[in-house]
C-alpha cells in the first residue's frame, strides 16, 4: 500500500482500442510523501493518458493506482478527495472572477461559507493573487491564470498534486517561478507532486525523475540520467 500521502502506480497498462497499440505498458513507479517527481516524456509518450487514468477520467482493469493510500478503483471518491489536479487544458471560466472560480471549485469539494472563504483568501495570498481576486480570469496573463489554477487545486488541502504540463506556453521566467512555487509546496507543506513535462530544464538535480517513452518507463531515478545531461 502507498505510504499515507504518497502516490503509487503499479503495472499500469492502457489501450485506446482493443487492437490498437499500448498507450501505456506496465508502468510502475511510486512517489514518496513530500517528494517532487517529474514525469518526463516527449509528446505522445503517454503522460496525459497516465494523468487521465490517475484522475479517473479513464479507467483500466490493468494495474493499480493508489493515491494517499486509497485505491482509485476501489475507493475512487476517497482518492479524488485527496488529489489536486492542474490539467494541461485551461479550466478556468474566463468570464468569472478569480474568486468565483475558486469558490466554484471549493463547492465541488464540499466547501462553502466561512471555511471556503478563509481557504480562498489564504490561497490567494500565498500565490500573490489577492489584488486580482475580483478581476475576471480573462484579464489575467497566462502565467497568472496558471497560478490561479494551482492555487485552486490546493484549496481542499490535497495530499497529492498532479500537474499535467502546467508550463506549456509560458515564458522562461514565469516557468521558473511556477516550478519554484510548487517545489516550495513540497518542502513546506509535505505535498506529493507529480509534474509532467517535456522540458529538461524543469527538472532539478534533486528531483525524482520518471521518463516515459512510447508508454513505457525508460528511467526512474534522482535527477537526469548522465546521457540526458547537456554537455558542459
Amino acid at each position, binding site marked *: 500500500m502507498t505510504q499515507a500521502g504518497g502516490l503509487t502506480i503499479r503495472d499500469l497498462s492502457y489501450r485506446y482500442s482493443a487492437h490498437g497499440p499500448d498507450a501505456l505498458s506496465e508502468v510502475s513507479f511510486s512517489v514518496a510523501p513530500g517528494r517532487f517527481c517529474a514525469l518526463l516524456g516527449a509528446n505522445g509518450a503517454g503522460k496525459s493518458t497516465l494523468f487521465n487514468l490517475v484522475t479517473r477520467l479513464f479507467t483500466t482493469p490493468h494495474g493499480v493506482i493508489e493515491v494517499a493510500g486509497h485505491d482509485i478503483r476501489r475507493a475512487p*471518491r476517497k482518492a*479524488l478527495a485527496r488529489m489536486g489536479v492542474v490539467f494541461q487544458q485551461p479550466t478556468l471560466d474566463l468570464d468569472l472572477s478569480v474568486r468565483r472560480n475558486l469558490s*466554484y471549485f471549493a463547492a465541488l469539494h464540499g466547501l462553502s461559507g466561512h471555511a471556503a472563504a478563509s481557504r480562498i483568501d489564504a490561497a490567494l495570498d500565498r500565490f500573490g493573487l489577492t489584488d486580482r481576486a475580483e478581476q475576471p480570469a480573462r484579464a489575467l496573463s497566462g502565467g497568472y491564470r496558471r497560478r490561479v489554477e494551482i492555487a485552486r487545486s490546493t484549496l481542499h488541502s490535497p495530499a497529492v498534486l498532479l500537474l499535467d504540463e502546467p508550463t506549456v506556453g509560458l515564458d522562461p521566467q514565469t516557468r521558473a517561478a511556477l516550478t519554484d512555487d510548487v517545489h516550495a509546496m513540497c518542502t513546506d507543506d509535505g505535498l506529493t507532486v507529480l509534474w509532467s513535462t517535456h522540458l529538461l530544464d524543469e527538472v532539478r538535480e534533486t528531483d525524482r525523475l520518471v521518463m516515459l517513452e512510447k508508454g513505457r518507463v525508460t528511467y526512474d531515478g534522482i535527477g537526469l540520467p548522465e546521457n540526458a545531461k547537456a554537455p558542459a
Partner: protein
Amino acid sequence: MNGALIALRAILIREALRFIRQKGRFVAALVRPLVWLVVFAAGFRAALGLSITPPYQTYITYEIYIVPGLCGMILLFNGMQSSLSLVYDREMGSMRLLLTSPLPRWWLLFCRLISSTAISILQVYTFLGVAWIYGIDMPWQGYLMVLPALALCGVMLGAVGLALSSIIKQLENFAGVMNFVIFPMFFLSSALYPLWKMAESSALLHDICAFNPFTHAVELIRFALYGQMNWIALLWVLASGAVWLALALWGYDPARGMIRRKG
C-alpha cells in the same frame, strides 16, 4: 449543508451567471418561438382546420394550438444547447474539473441537468408571458400545473443532449447532430400539427410521431397548461427520460473513457 447540495448550488449559480452573461442566448431562445407564434402560425391559421380534441373544449385558433409545442421547442433547443456547452466545457477542460470532484459522477451530471432545466423553465415562462400579452392565455391553474411538466420534460430532453454529448468527440460534430436530432424530433411530433392530422397524410409518419418522446412531452405540457393530466404522456416522458439518463450515465462512465484522447 451537505457536500452534494453545496455542489448543486454552485453548479446552479455558475449556470445562472453564464446565462446572465449570454443575453443573446436568452433573446434567441425567446425570439425563435415568438417568430413561429406570430409569423408561422398566422400563415398556417387559414390552411389548417383544427377539430375539437382534448384538452380543448372548443374550436381553437392555430396560435393557441402551437403554444405548448413552442414551450417544448424552448426545452428541446435549450437541452441541446446545454449539451453543446458540455462539449465546449470538455474541449476547454472544465468538464474535467467537474468530473474529478469526489462527488458521485451521476450526481454531478444530474446537477448539470437540473441547472439547465431551471434556465429553460425561466425562458418558457417568459415566452408564456409574451404570449399572454399577445392575447393567448391559459386557465390560471394551468400556469402552475405546467411547472412540474416542464421540469420533467426539461430533464428528459436534457438527458437526450447529455447522452449525445458523451458520444460526440468534437464541437464541430455536434452541429451536425443538432440538425439530425432537433429538427426530426420537432417536426415529427405533435408540436405543430395534431397526430390525427398527420395520420390523414401518412400512417407511417403518424406512427413515428407517436413513438417520438418529444410528442409526449408536448402533450404533457399541453394538458398541464389546461389543468389536466395526460397519464400516457407522463409515462412516456418518465420512461424515455429514464432510458436517456441511463444512456448518458453509461456514456460518461470512466470505463468507457468519455474523453478519450490520445495524449
